[in-house]
């Protein structure tokens, strides 16, 4: 082959110019197989654009509890976590719930039953610790020259929710998806089912305007299942 280099170089010197080559990919050069090549270490991806291992992630988000009938559904929050490998991360998710009540349902119920849901203990904030299993890392091309990396990760964790009078436990599970704009910044969308305890706002007789306001402790504790979605931006450091 060494001799061939010399031959090629001689040819090169003898041919100073080339006709313009038009880009035309012959059909036979296009992929014909769906099997993967064999390597000693058959990693799915090498030289990844988004490296998360041993990195800290910080993010801001807004979210909503879509099945919450009484309290405000909206929240804003902060994500802070650590990725100890490309496969797993631990994220802490702090949420400050918006004050007030659900404006879609509560006024109607209050008016109809002459009730006052402001007597219900207020939902203040929640803190969750979630394990994220980063099962899928991929990419998507939406423009001719643009490529965006994706990450899909199941989420599971435990947390607490603070009401006026008491802290309640809960557990959640769901799935999240990140769309990376570059190597660090990502749009993060998480969808979770939260099974958690909280005060049952429907205290018999306790909400009626005609009755004296009950103590927060009089509201019965109850487990409920909520659907929560968070959308935000996160950054890898």
């Amino acid at each position, binding site marked *: 082959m060494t001799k061939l280099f010399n031959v090629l170089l001689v040819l090169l010197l003898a041919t100073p110019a080339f006709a313009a080559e038009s880009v035309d990919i012959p059909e036979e050069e296009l992929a014909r197989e769906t099997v993967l090549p*064999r390597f000693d270490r058959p990693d799915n991806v090498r030289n990844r654009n988004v490296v998360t291992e041993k990195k800290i992630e910080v993010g801001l988000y807004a979210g909503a509890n879509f099945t919450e009938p009484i309290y405000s559904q909206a929240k804003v929050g902060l994500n802070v976590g650590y990725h100890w490998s490309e496969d797993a991360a631990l994220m802490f998710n702090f949420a400050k719930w918006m004050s007030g009540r659900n404006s879609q349902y509560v006024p109607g119920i209050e008016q109809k039953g002459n009730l006052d849901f402001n007597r219900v203990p207020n939902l203040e904030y929640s803190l969750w610790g979630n394990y994220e299993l980063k099962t899928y890392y991929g990419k998507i091309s939406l423009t001719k020259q643009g490529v965006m990396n994706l990450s899909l990760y199941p989420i599971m964790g435990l947390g607490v929710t603070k009401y006026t009078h008491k802290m309640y436990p809960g557990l959640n599970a769901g799935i999240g998806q990140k769309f990376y704009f570059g190597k660090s910044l990502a749009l993060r969308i998480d969808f979770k089912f939260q099974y958690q305890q909280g005060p049952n706002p429907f205290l018999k007789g306790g909400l009626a305007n005609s009755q004296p306001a009950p103590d927060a402790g009089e509201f019965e504790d109850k487990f409920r299942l909520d659907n929560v979605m968070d959308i935000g931006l996160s950054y890898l450091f």
Partner: protein
Amino acid sequence: MKNFSRFSLLILIALSVTSADAQNNRKKAKPAAKPKAAAPAANPMMRAVERAQQKQTNRAAAPRQQSPTSYLQQQLNQALAQVRAGQYQQAAPTLYGLSRRKELESERQQIKYILGVALSEMKMYQTAAFQFVDVIRTGGGKYVRQSIERLSLAADALGDDTLLNYAISKVRIDEFPQNQKDVVYYRLGEIKLRNGQFGEAAELFSRVNANSRYSANARFNRGLALLESNRPQEALQLFNSLHQSRSRASVTDTNRVASQMAIARTYYQMQDWDKAMEAYREIPRDSEYWHDALFESSWAQLRSAKFRSTLSNLQSLHSAYYEDSFIPESLLVRSIVYLYICKFDETEKTLNLFEAQYGPVRTQLSRFLETTRDPLAYFQEVERAYYIRKDRKPNQGLRLPYMVSRAVLDEGNVKRAFGYLKALNDEKARIEALPTIARSPLGVYAMKVLASRFKNSKVSTGDLVRAHLLNMRKNLNDFFEQASFVRYEMINGKKELLKKKIAGKESPNAQIDENVDRKFYTQNGFEYWPFDGEYWLDEIGNYHYLGQQSCE
């Protein structure tokens, strides 16, 4: 190995039939009576056991003379009966003990041969081989020919070239049984091929019977010998027929893919680039030959002036998936293609990459070669790489770059040497698993034999490794020389470009073909992904260079 087991099965059947007769003969024999003529034995080993047993039977039947050897003869008789009954584990230690007794010197060759057979039956080929070698070295006896046969089979099972060469050097093929001639022709052909005697090699390979288990390999090697003898048309015919004969096998069947690869290489040798490229494209992606096919087809593309296709292939070969592969030549090819299409910046980048990647490799390689003399150190270095590869460990604790050791491990003779060491390890494990043998003097002897073979093989493998490393260093030096030549041409090209620029004759510096319509790529279900530095396993082999040539 199938022949071996079939052979042992025949022995067992034949022995089980004849053993009852022999027992009866012993009981009925009278001192002066001639032994009853037995039916002709089915194979040499059975004949040997029968002869030995007959001799012992006669002695046992003779008037009791309380000779000092009578006890030993009884033992021998018992051991032979055990061999007949297939009780090799019980017989072998006794036979080993008897083979060392002076009193049985006249039977020594016979005992060693039978011991070797018993050991072979227990797949203790190395220890068995030593028995056969002893018989052959002593010479003169009637067991020499049979021992050569057996030795060649044991050496074949072990994959030990030294033993095999020894056995083959003693062989007179016409004396070999017909059913075992194939192995000798095949191995002799291999030796000739390695020694560069291609015509003789081709002739020997052609003698291997079509029904033999060596047939496919022999035909393949014959093709290689023909190629080396510059007879590509004949080789092509052979490879095509080999490929057709495997048409029903799975697409990744080693013989099928190897023959396809050989077809591609034959076309390359014939300088029929289009057919070579076509043949290379038939190599399945999930075959271990595919990487070589990718690189070799790049050469075919380059030689047919398909520069865009060449760069497409090289994009795969220079991906992070090949960071452990020693392919310096591919970077030089890339730089030459860039030079062809007047991409001088790219040429420079590629040359810089070549120097950055292989400069330290050359330094480390030279330092290792200059500071290391002990062949064992060479072996140990490559052995570490072997385990890193096998166990997918991190590339740490190596004195040589991993890519270098890995390339050496892929060399045919080093591969064979490691295969032989594995066979020795397996034999050691088998001995340790048989307490009756492991604790006997035979076990101690076998362990000594294995230890000595381990040591010698490691030394000889170390020598092989050193030879490969020296060769790699020489090639690398050549490549660096070529790289400086390419760099000179690149600077020259840049100078010419600058002159044109000053004269206002500069061509538009388009980097990629913006006019290529994305629809082209998405038609027929194909997807298009612009490359952004990330390498995906399912994209390897599917890159398409879209750059434009910059020559005027």
